[in-house]
């Protein structure tokens, strides 16, 4: 799968990228803020977009909304990889039709979690 990982914390980027590529065998593209994430998401075709909740420029929810409004053609599924955990936040994610994985995530089960969410959405 071709995945866009939008995350501002370089350590988490390193770990998530390693897990996704080494365990899941995915092709990972990284964006370090909301602006870059939106730009890349609109310019390229991805199979999945992983969005951090809080990022510079645009927060994850904003990126998701703009992507869904502006993206021409088929849209990639979106999963929030967020430290936010309040019921309000989760219901916002759900209302956008996105999945949600809470941080800190378990690197061993991240890929199977993603697969589960994608299978459920399909």
């Amino acid at each position: 799968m071709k995945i866009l990982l939008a995350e501002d914390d370089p350590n988490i980027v390193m770990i998530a990228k390693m897990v996704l590529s080494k365990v899941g065998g995915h092709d990972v593209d990284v964006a370090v803020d909301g602006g870059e994430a939106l730009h890349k998401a609109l310019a390229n075709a991805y199979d999945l977009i992983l969005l951090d909740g809080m990022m510079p420029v645009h927060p994850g929810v904003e990126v998701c909304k703009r992507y869904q409004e502006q993206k021409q053609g088929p849209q990639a599924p979106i999963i929030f990889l967020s430290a936010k955990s309040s019921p309000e936040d989760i219901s916002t994610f759900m209302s956008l039709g996105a999945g949600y994985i809470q941080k800190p995530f378990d690197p061993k089960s991240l890929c199977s979690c993603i697969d589960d969410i994608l299978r459920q959405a399909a």
Partner: protein
Amino acid sequence: MKTLKAKINILVLAVIGSAGFFGFMSYEMDRKISYIQSLAVESLSLRDAISDIKPEKKNQEVLQRLKAIKSRLKEPERRRAASDLIQAYNANNRRLFYTRARQFDKIERSFFKKTQIAFQIARKRLKFYLFMTALIPGFLLFILFYYVNVGILSPLQTLSSRMMEFLIDQYTFRFSTPPNNEIGNLERTFNSLAQKVLNNMDELKALDRAKSEFVSIASHELRTPLTSIKGSLGLLSSNIVGEMNQEAKDMVLVAEQETDRLVRLINDMLDLAKIEARSLNLKREWSSLRDLIKKTSQGMQGFASAAKVHLQVVEPIQELEALMDADRVQQVITNLISNAIKYSPEEGIVTIEYMPLDEQRIGITISDQGKGISDENKALIFQKFRQATDSNNHLVKGTGLGLAISKALVEEHEGEIGVRSKLGEGSTFYFTLKQWRVRSTEKDQRNSGEAA
């Protein structure tokens, strides 16, 4: 400022004054009428007395009587007629006496007529005064009544209903133009009170916002580094970045377990902060306890098996529902079951049971066969970060917050939570919910299902 008090005082005084004045006048008139009547009666009797007198035989007694009559008369005309009569009597002139007697009678008759006229006038006046005694105070009372009603009672009624409006309508109502009297003062006071309440509420809201902002920032700031730590350890322990020797593996396992504990601690603390800030917003609905407990115990099954503990559910025959926020009650039951498992010996049995306590309350109990809790610890363990006994198994280390959270959640449901236990004989944790009912829709649904 024309106050209502002044207006009402003046009116009350006017009612009393007018009633007194016209009452007094009526009384005076009544006395005058009696007096006039007595004059008329006297005049009649004088005429009778005079006509009885025979002047032929001069008599001292008669003379005395005539003098007495004269002395009683006040009007000069009548006195003169009387003294003329006495003179004629003294003169022993019979003819003159009769002429004078006729004269006297004529004057008395005209006097009597005058009294009758005066009587009529006086009676009319009496009627008038009596009428005024009723009319003027009555009229003033009517105005007073009007002032009390329109000026006081209905404004008070409006005031109280407006205050209710203020309460119900999220504190928005204020009086626009209070009148210039006592009621107006009340409305002005209410307006400033309302303003104060609104200011305080703004402050409280700002405080609340700051608190939840703090919680959300803290949760982000704590979870971000933990994500890196947990991620790195996970990558190490799953050999993704290379093989480690056994000692290194053990070290990493400890680090991983403690990280997980830290994550739970942060989750619990944030949860507790939210509960304590009352920003929980329970979504209370009727939902099935059977479903909830089944779901929860199934969720705990893995943990129980790993600890070699048996879970068992005892439930009433009827399907019961409780008025609750099912997610939050599940959190409570999960906490209690997880404790029971943690503090159970191997092959121990954890029993989950629920039954109505009375018409309203329903009790849920979670019992274990662990080492129990001493009396002095019973109260302590519901406090934050209080841990009494070491867990039997080290599968999951506690945070000391589980029971504090459970207590807060149960109390938010207006229920009670507690523990019955003796050292060495296991513990039974229980909590209550405020309202239960037998699930009625089940049958109905089946019936309508068959009908369809």
